[in-house]
């Protein structure tokens, strides 16, 4: 009896030592300082970044609001750099439409009315943010709290760092061209995909892919009393709790106008959340376009570019949703106060095809630093 117990004890001890040694040998557990100018990245969902930063698993991260202010207000993180300091007025989220939806007059009319509602909601948000003592600002915060499930102080902090903007201006198209060029350089988009899509070059692609004419037509859209599409609602795709996409939450709210109608209804639209909405990321919205479940969607511009060129998803960008509004966050009290402080450290990103990843790469390049996956 005792013999057997001691044998088992020895087996267990040996096994644990074996496993521990294997762990140590197979993984380099020491800190990797690299070559003195390398910053390491890992990929993880923004929703877990505050937690892993607090637990010390990462040294910093880059993400969009409200995942920035969430850490700042919680005392976990400090902003090292706002994305607007990296690329001023950089594009972020856009409104895209599934091409088959605008293949007839009725769809085009509905799309123009949708954009009018989007403009109206964006203008209302901007006006509300101008005057923080106004009841509109309080209502805006309420809508944002409901949509993001964050508390009021996080939302307030986040709103201060965001710019809602719908026009598809030159800053927008130039930045889209730059992002597309970066993807081509990095081999994420194959050179042949531009020609396969029927485009002469990157400029031609962005020219055709962004269609600003709906915004122009939308200026002349007037409110109507009846719903134009009572039986076939516009199926709307958007991201879960992404504060950038607040405009669609405002346009859905029946409290904004004060007449019991939502902004969408005011312009004669029946708009429903698409099956699967809110989506986890922009790629999922594009997948839902491809599957035919979404008519109009709010999503980040990189997935809109990548999935259109690589996966031939038939979509067109009609408007911007917001500009800037992302940041590099480092742990509070870590002493990291400039980008060089990130050398040899691990920064979490939402994924290599996100706009945040490109921004991180750009800003490190400006400092002569390189970005490598943590191995």
């Amino acid at each position, binding site marked *: *009896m005792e*013999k*057997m117990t001691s*044998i*088992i004890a020895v*087996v*267990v001890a040996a*096994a*644990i030592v*074996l*496993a521990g040694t*294997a*762990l140590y040998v*197979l*993984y380099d*557990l020491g800190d990797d300082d690299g070559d003195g100018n390398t910053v390491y990245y*890992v*990929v*993880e*969902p923004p929703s*877990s970044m505050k*937690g*892993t930063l*607090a*637990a010390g*698993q*990462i040294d910093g991260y880059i993400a969009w609001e409200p995942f920035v202010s969430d850490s700042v207000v919680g005392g976990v993180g400090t902003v090292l750099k706002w994305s607007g300091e990296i690329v001023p007025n950089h594009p972020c989220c856009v409104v895209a439409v599934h091409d*088959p939806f605008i293949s007839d007059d009725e769809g085009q009319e509905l799309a123009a009315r949708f954009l009018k509602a989007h403009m109206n909601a964006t203008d209302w948000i901007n006006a509300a943010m101008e005057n923080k003592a106004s009841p509109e600002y309080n209502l805006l915060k309420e809508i944002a709290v409901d949509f993001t499930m964050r508390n009021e102080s996080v939302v307030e902090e986040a709103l201060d760092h965001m710019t809602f903007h719908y026009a598809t201006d030159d800053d927008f198209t130039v930045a889209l061209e730059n992002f597309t060029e970066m993807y081509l350089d*990095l*081999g*994420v*988009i*194959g050179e042949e995909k531009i020609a396969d899509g029927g485009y002469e070059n990157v400029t031609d692609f962005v020219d055709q892919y962004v269609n600003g004419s709906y915004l122009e037509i939308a200026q002349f859209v007037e409110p109507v009393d009846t719903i134009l599409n009572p039986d076939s609602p516009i199926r709307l795709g958007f991201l879960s709790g992404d504060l950038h996409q607040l405009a669609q939450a405002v346009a859905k709210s029946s409290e904004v106008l004060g007449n019991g109608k939502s902004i969408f209804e005011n312009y004669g639209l029946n708009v429903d959340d698409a099956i699967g909405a809110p989506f986890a*990321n922009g*790629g999922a919205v*594009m*997948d839902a*376009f*491809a*599957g*035919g479940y979404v008519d109009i969607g709010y999503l980040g511009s990189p*997935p809109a570019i*990548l*999935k259109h060129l*690589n*996966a*031939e*998803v*038939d979509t067109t960008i009609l408007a911007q949703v917001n500009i800037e509004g992302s940041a590099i966050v480092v742990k509070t009290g870590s002493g990291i106060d400039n980008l060089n402080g990130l050398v040899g450290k*691990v920064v*979490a990103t939402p*994924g*290599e*095809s*996100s706009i945040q990843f490109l921004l991180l790469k750009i800003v490190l390049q400006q400092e002569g630093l390189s970005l*490598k*996956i*943590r*191995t």
Partner: protein
Amino acid sequence: MKSLAQFIRGTVQRNWRRVLLGALSLVVFFGAWQTYSWYLNANDIGYKAYFPYPGEVAEAFLDSFVTPDFSGLLMTDHIMASLKRIFLGFTLAFAIALPAGLLIGSYLTAEAVGMPIVEIFRPIPPLAWIPIVLIVLGHLSGPVVIVFLGIFFPVLFNVILGVKRVDPLLLDAAKTLGAKRNHIFFKVILPFTTPYLMTGIKVGLGIGWMCIVAAEMVGQYGGGVGYYIWARTAESNYDYVFAGIAMIAILGILTTGVASQVERRLYRWMGMK
């Protein structure tokens, strides 16, 4: 010594029905795939690029070994990263589940102490732990622990089952012949339990591969085949996504194959077959 050609001819001659049916099933599978991709393209279905032709996938598969991806890694790097996780997860699971299973199966006290904990944790899918594990254990050991959880329970329960199924007649016979407890353990219980253990290991490895894909998608160091699939999906290079999926299938078959080989040798060594 027989040449390889002779060996193959001999095998085919002996098993021609199996070989024929197996080949036929693969032909039908790839034919159906090819036809589906063709159908999507011919009718210009919105998601046609999501189902590349088998030929495109094969091309991407080979290319993934020579052209580094966005993160500068080759498929071999991803395979090594995933294999390390499977190996470590497996070693940990084996090291803890085998002795624990033997104890719980052999002693009522151990069963009374161990089973409540085991029964609480067993029904929880390993993937449910991912968000917590990532924060507590980090990107390095987090995915390993997820794999560990996937392999641990099948091994543990099969070992317990094996110990409990030991024929009492064998035990009585051994005792009558004057065997001591440790003899009974090494000569009767352990050999009897081995087939159950091996079944547990094979089932566990399958579950381990299922877990690793999801674990790597959420966060890891140094890539991995699961991460590869996720990253290529975000880029929408679906021929490479399918190449990654095929790689998981191959790795799964290989690791289970190795386990089967070990099993065969073990039986022969123990004089069981």
